């Protein structure tokens, strides 16, 4: 008993040390973001600012238009998530419930594309967008991302698990197939849809390389791109840099705290890495 109590204590100790190391960068970010400039570059470091200097946030906003970046990120994230949900629901229904010529072939080709790293698509997609005249537009940030093979696959699996008898019953009652999809299948598939939507929101909010490449003007930058440009604009003012980083990080941390059960369940069920 004594031995197992000892191991338990060791486990708690090691887990706590690990947890502190995981949290430290966030704590340090928030602490720096609230410091007066003279407390930033000190040795030994000041852990708790002597007074909370909220003006760092307003100053960061005056150096770079983080309010615009924020709105851009919100618009891009919301629209690409809604778009992906719609295309996914429709396509997953076809794969799960309709028998048609070429079904296996199309499905196999789509799954095959999942093996190709996204970086391979970068150059041709850039050329396509410039031919469409879409470089430096909202469409460029949203449209290429409103369909996902992974999401279709996930939702199809879920749809397959919904009893077929339901659709027979609906048919007998004179419900059209489309109405059946929206009013019966979609509500039943809510857990899978929440997973798809949350992972999409996280990926879309944090996306960097694509928005970096397809935007030129400041007005169209999303938060990560704006933040990356800000490192040059803010110079060595770490209190401003940390305030700006907090603005990028905090919305997702808040979302995570609210929806963490769904996010963790989604990741452990699907093994998807952003």
């Amino acid at each position, binding site marked *: 008993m004594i031995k197992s109590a000892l191991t338990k204590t060791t*486990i708690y100790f090691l887990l706590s040390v*690990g947890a502190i190391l995981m949290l430290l960068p966030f704590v340090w970010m928030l602490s720096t973001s609230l410091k007066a400039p003279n407390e930033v570059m000190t040795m030994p470091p000041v852990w708790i600012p002597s007074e909370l200097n909220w003006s760092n946030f307003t100053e960061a906003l005056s150096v770079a238009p983080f309010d615009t970046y924020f709105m851009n990120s919100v618009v891009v994230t919301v629209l690409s998530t809604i778009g992906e949900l719609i295309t996914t629901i429709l396509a997953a229904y076809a794969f799960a419930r*309709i028998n048609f010529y070429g079904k296996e072939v199309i499905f196999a080709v789509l799954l095959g594309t999942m093996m190709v790293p996204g970086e391979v*698509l970068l150059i*041709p997609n*850039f050329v396509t967008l410039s031919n469409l005249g879409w470089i430096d537009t909202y469409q460029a940030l949203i449209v290429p991302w409103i369909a996902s093979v992974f999401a279709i696959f996930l939702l199809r699996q879920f749809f397959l698990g919904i009893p077929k008898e339901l659709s027979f019953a609906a048919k007998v009652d004179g419900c059209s197939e489309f109405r059946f999809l929206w009013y019966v299948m979609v509500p039943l598939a809510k857990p899978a849809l929440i997973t798809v939507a949350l992972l999409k929101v996280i990926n879309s909010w*944090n996306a*960097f390389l694509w928005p970096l490449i397809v935007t030129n003007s400041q007005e169209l930058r999303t938060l990560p791109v704006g933040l990356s440009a800000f490192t040059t604009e803010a110079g060595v003012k*770490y209190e401003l840099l940390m305030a700006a980083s907090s603005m990028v990080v905090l919305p997702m941390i808040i979302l995570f705290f609210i929806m963490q059960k769904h996010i963790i369940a989604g990741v452990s069920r699907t093994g998807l890495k952003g």
Partner: protein
Amino acid sequence: MMSEPTWKSTFKAFLYLLPALLILIIFNIYPIIKSFLMSFYIDFDYFNNVVYERGVRNFIHLFQDPNFIKATLNTFIFVVGVVPISIILSLTIALFLNSKIKFLGFFRTIYFLPFVTSVVAVAIVWSWIFHSDYGLLNYFLGWFGIDPINWLTDPTYAMPALIILSIWKGLGFNIIIFLAGLQNINQQYYLAAQVDGASAWRRFTNMTLPLLSPTMFFVSIISIINGFKVFDEIFALFNGKPGPANSTLTVVYYVYQKFYEEYEFSLAAAAAFVLFIIVFIFTLVQLIIGKKFVHYD
């Protein structure tokens, strides 16, 4: 409803598939083919879509370019630096979390937190932690009598700095997958082993590890593949440069340089194709070895 396919049902299915297929064909399938073709372009005019000459010269050029060789080597070093440590750490933490402790949810939340945050933002935070004069890391190292290290400006330490950041960022994901794997193991095996008097260490090596091997394998392959695609971390950590003296130049960074900074589209496409081949080989290994050697319950 799931009757034999007819032309009518095919037409209906394509109406449902249309929005998704349209996007996927234009932005997923076409670019895969195009990227492959592009890597063989030698003389061309992109925006008018005319190709005057094709050949394998891009690939020859790549393998003669010291920067590309360096990028490939760096990428391998990065993967070798991140994956084993990350797997050992995350497996250990997952085992701890799985040992019927209190506050499981609390710990899991904290370890997972970096996963949901922007790579760019946390890399900028880490660049502050790595600061040579006022950074937290050098401050802590000072406790052990270690002199300040120029993490981000010394070519020797740039790669270790990148590896530390990447392990921290990816740990939570691996822990969650390992926890799911551990929770799938049938508890009766353990009861049986305990009745037979197997020690904790023997239970771990002879039962947990073999039963966890599919998860272990999955996590390794995903980590390796993601390791080969590293880019955002580097860009943000070194302020838009691939580290001091190209010390953290990786394959994706090389693609970015050729494509976006030097407008060498076909060379960039060829480099991206090499990346695809590397990733593809690991995916195949996963499918083949996975079936042969991994113990599935």
